[in-house]
């Protein structure tokens, strides 16, 4: 496992009396798409917040690209190469798609604040270069026609794509997607699958939380299933699909009336 890009080692966090994540260990290898699944409230988003520095773990160690990043501030973790999207879309409303995507270029920006205030020729060239980089990526995700549109006026599925564009333009080493298919129609969801696979082929590792089992089963190489903050199973999609603990976590032991459509449709 020494080749792993991201490695969680016995990571835990406690909020007051609630152990939200406990003894969580898993790894994301280079060029790998890893899915993190589990019932609602299992601690998936908390795990993402731990990895991206939004929360600091009480226990354990997180290593990224050979560096211990445990407890780092989120902006330093971004600098290390981890970028993410959010379960509840967090775009900068009131601004255009282009300006939103330019946020992802923050770390690649080379202008100083005083160059900006004076609008020097070098700064103008830099702005043009940033705009071009952003537009190229928008074109790739079929968003270029919407570059000047206020993100708040866009349909949900398109907003998700803008958020993905904002993370992708940052050239992450690891892309973290929190329920990227939530609220997407079948067509959008299929396009998302293709995008995720294409991203992986460019050498970007992906870690995703998803309830849509079509996405999870079709694109991931490896799945980690957690429940009540603890890992209950790990392995290939085929392995996870038939794992008794996973089925129990989703279906419950006795309650046979409750059949989540997610697992059902994937099987």
């Amino acid at each position, binding site marked *: 496992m020494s080749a792993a890009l991201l490695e969680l080692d016995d990571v835990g966090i406690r909020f007051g009396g609630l152990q939200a994540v406990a003894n969580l260990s898993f790894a994301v290898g280079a060029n790998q798409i890893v899915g993190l699944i589990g019932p609602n409230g299992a601690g998936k988003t908390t795990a993402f917040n731990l990895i991206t520095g939004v929360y600091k773990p009480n226990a354990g160690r997180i290593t990224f690209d050979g560096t211990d990043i445990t407890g780092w*501030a989120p902006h330093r973790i971004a600098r290390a190469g981890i970028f993410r999207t959010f379960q509840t879309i967090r775009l900068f409303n009131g601004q255009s798609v282009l300006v939103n995507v330019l946020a992802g270029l923050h770390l690649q*920006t080379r202008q100083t604040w005083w160059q*900006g205030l004076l609008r020097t020729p070098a700064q103008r060239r830099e702005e043009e270069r940033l705009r071009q980089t952003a537009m190229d990526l928008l074109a790739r995700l079929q968003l270029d026609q919407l570059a*000047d549109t206020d993100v708040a006026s866009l349909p949900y599925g398109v907003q998700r794509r803008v958020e993905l564009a904002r993370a992708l333009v940052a050239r992450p080493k690891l892309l973290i997607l929190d329920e990227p298919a939530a609220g997407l129609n079948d067509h959008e969801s299929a396009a998302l699958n293709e995008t995720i696979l294409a991203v992986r082929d460019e050498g970007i590792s992906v870690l995703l939380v998803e309830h849509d089992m079509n996405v999870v089963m079709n694109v991931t190489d490896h799945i980690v299933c957690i429940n009540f903050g603890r890992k209950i199973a790990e392995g290939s999609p085929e392995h996870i699909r038939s794992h008794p603990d996973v089925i129990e976590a989703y279906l419950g032991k006795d309650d046979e009336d409750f059949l989540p459509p997610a697992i059902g449709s994937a099987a």
Partner: protein
Amino acid sequence: MKAVLDGINRPWIGAVLWLAGLAVPLALDQTWMFIASLFAVYAIVALSQDIVLGRAGMFDMGHAVYFGVGAYATAILNTQFNWPILATWPVAVLLAALAGAVLSAPIVKLRGDYLLVVTIGLNAIFVLALNNNLARMTGGPDGIFGIGVPSIFGWQLASASAQFWLDWVAFAATLVLIHNLDRSHLGRTLYYIKHDQLAATTMGIDIRAYKVLAFALSAALAGFAGTLFAALMAAVSPGAFVFTESVTLFAIVLVGGQGSIPGVLLGTALMFVVPQAFRQFAEYRYFVFGIAMVVVMVLRPQGIWPRRRSAGAKA
């Protein structure tokens, strides 16, 4: 196309209004020239307040401190150390910027309302220090009189019109800087921070560093306005930098429109020009402005002349 027209039109309108202002000394009397100069100075302070409040989204209700630091720096250096006014400019601006950075560094992490209370406290301490004749230099409650006039290349800007030109040019320079800010990486970054700190920080933005930078820049600009103010009035006293002045600046930005240059200028005109022009109503200005604040906040919370969507989109 509409966006392009938007981008060209508004600065163009601003330039025309500014040029029209140049006619004030030709067409109107000394009083109006003074009012126009005062407007220019207060417009610069209000625009500087808008960097922190309207653009970075920090509730700074002690902005008169930085205005005062600039004004007192010029007053003290000129009257007690015989520095020429222009030579005091860089010191006034740097001292104000330093005050902004040092005072804000420990507090920018505070949530909006807490930050607001702390900045009120800073303003109170500042005025107290001035009133108590800090370092035997600030002159106590009476302040400092007899501040000299600026001179450029040996030419004394003694007349009211000369002061007007100076302030009016400084005002133009400020407008250009703020306009550029909105189209720069820094302007965008402040917008990201104001609207979603979590999303901003996960994009690699060091929020604290940018907030302190916003405070320092804003304070520098306020300090610059302060030095102009000292030269224009030929005197400074604590009364010009008290908490109610900070509230007024805060209100100008909220009522005019956060992050909107025309909005802030409109607010400044309402607050500082109208009362001067109609002296008999001057004592009612807080009354009128207070009502305006209530009405605007209820009916039009984005301000009278809000920032246009996608300002800063012009890459």
